[in-house]
């Protein structure tokens, strides 16, 4: 429709011809708000998958965690107006979308508390993937709090188009989503490549990322409250202090990629060989050699007999699991002795 407006001479968004520019914002965010959920929902899945492995406990409230995903998807379709509360939107619409947006914090809160419940009294192993998960969860909770603030219409009108908004979504995207993806990379790297990433480099990477991200994005919140607008390349001297801090954080974040790349490349080339299940995790992929053969199980597809995330319950996941693992271990020993 924008294309028609620009090329064919229609006036869908042109007020001169009876069109409505806000309609464009509606269309844009009606699509784009659910689209940002596409970024974060897989990371929720990563958290749900990894916390049980490194806390040695079943996922707390499995049914509610998965139900919450569906509720988030449903609610995510009816919150798009919160992106433009300040553009001539009728008051009833603002109220409706404020309430809808705040409702999202209920299913996400369910997830957060389920993850905390998984960690509660678990045997926590602070491996690199677990550190990234914990850091990501911390940042996500912070982003959730500023998210509820932004959903409130009066607050949003005050900080709209300032660095507060920038800080909020960077906490979600880098603080939570990217860190969750890093956790997943470290977790499944042995399975993909067949070699273990180095823990020392991984922890250094985590430290630099976590400190860097918080140093970079936290100052954006006071800046936004002070009124620094986004999408402007320069800033007034009064904003200098927080901006210098944020820049330092940005440099740290940039540097944090170096140990990551170093780790990935050197582990790929000459890292220690990974066993079929280096994290002692429960799941079908961990009943395959690392890296798995083409066509995974081939003719012998195992039959799953118990529920997922059965950590600490002592039940086998599939039929004949003991024989399967013994065969894998025997093959690994053979490999070592060769």
């Amino acid at each position, binding site marked *: 429709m924008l294309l028609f407006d620009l090329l064919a001479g*229609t006036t869908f968004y042109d007020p001169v011809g009876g069109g409505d520019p806000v309609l464009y914002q509606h269309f844009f965010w009606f699509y784009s708000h659910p689209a940002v959920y596409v970024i974060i929902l897989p990371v929720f899945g990563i958290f749900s998958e990894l916390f049980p492995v490194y806390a040695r406990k079943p996922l707390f409230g499995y049914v509610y965690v998965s139900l919450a995903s569906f509720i988030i998807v449903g609610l995510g379709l009816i919150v798009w107006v919160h992106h433009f509360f300040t553009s001539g939107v009728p008051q009833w619409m603002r109220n409706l979308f404020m309430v809808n947006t705040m409702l999202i914090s209920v299913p996400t809160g369910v997830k957060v508390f389920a993850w905390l419940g998984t960690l509660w009294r678990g045997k926590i192993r602070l491996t690199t993937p677990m550190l990234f998960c914990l850091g990501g969860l911390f940042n996500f909770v912070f982003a959730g709090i500023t998210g509820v603030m932004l959903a409130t219409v009066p607050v949003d009108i005050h900080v709209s188009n300032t660095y507060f908004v920038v800080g909020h979504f960077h906490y979600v995207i880098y603080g939570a989503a990217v860190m969750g993806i890093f956790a997943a990379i470290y977790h499944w790297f042995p399975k993909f490549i067949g070699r273990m990433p180095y823990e020392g480099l991984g922890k250094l990477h985590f430290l630099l990322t976590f400190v860097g991200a918080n140093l970079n994005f936290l100052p954006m919140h006071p800046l936004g409250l002070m009124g620094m607008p986004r999408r402007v390349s320069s800033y007034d001297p009064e904003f200098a202090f927080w901006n210098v801090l944020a820049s330092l954080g940005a440099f740290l974040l940039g540097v944090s990629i170096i140990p990551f790349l170093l780790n990935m490349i050197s582990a790929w080339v000459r890292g220690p060989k990974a066993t079929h299940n280096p994290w002692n995790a429960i799941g079908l992929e961990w009943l395959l050699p690392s890296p798995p053969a083409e066509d995974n199980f081939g003719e012998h597809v195992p039959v799953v007999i118990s529920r997922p995330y059965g950590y600490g319950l002592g039940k086998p996941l599939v039929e004949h699991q003991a024989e399967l693992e013994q065969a894998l271990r025997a093959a690994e020993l053979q490999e070592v002795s060769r």
Partner: protein
Amino acid sequence: MTTTYPSPSAPEEHGGEHEKNNLTGFIIFLCSESVIFLAFFSGYALLKTSALDWLPAGVEGLEWHMPLINSVVLVSSSGTIYLAERAKTRGSLWGFRGFWLLTMALGSYFLYGQAVEWSGLEFGFTSGTFGGTFYLLTGFHGLHVATGVGLMTLMLIKSFIPGNYNGGEQGVQATSLFWHFVDVIWIILFLLIYVWQRS
């Protein structure tokens, strides 16, 4: 690295499951299609209710008798495609082809009627938001009708390949679903554009 696995207790056949999944994918596609149409419909309603002068100068309103006949044609084609599918499940391939061809004819008549209507209108695509939304909605829907007729042609040709419909019938099912979908969209469109004339 080779590993010998103990044989599982019961080898299972997975073929049937995958076929169902293909149709699920098509249903998800239809869901996303309906979201696009929903956006168009709500945009139309918003522009119409907020407009000061909805109709362009010299236009009194839309003539609705011919479109009504068109609607009846399209709605009845949903019935004939159902009959075609039923004939196929009963094993009568010629019955299927007959009703299928009838559906195609009805669909083509609809497109013809749409073309006649368009050529007789005194406003164009650029005649304000009224003209813009009218041609956008009917045009986008017309494209779907044309796609449906194209898919049906493809399925008709496939029906002459010997043994083609022994089991794998998702193409026909998907086309029929698509056709019902296009039909329902038209009913909403007809109500919005032709019945709801006074703003």
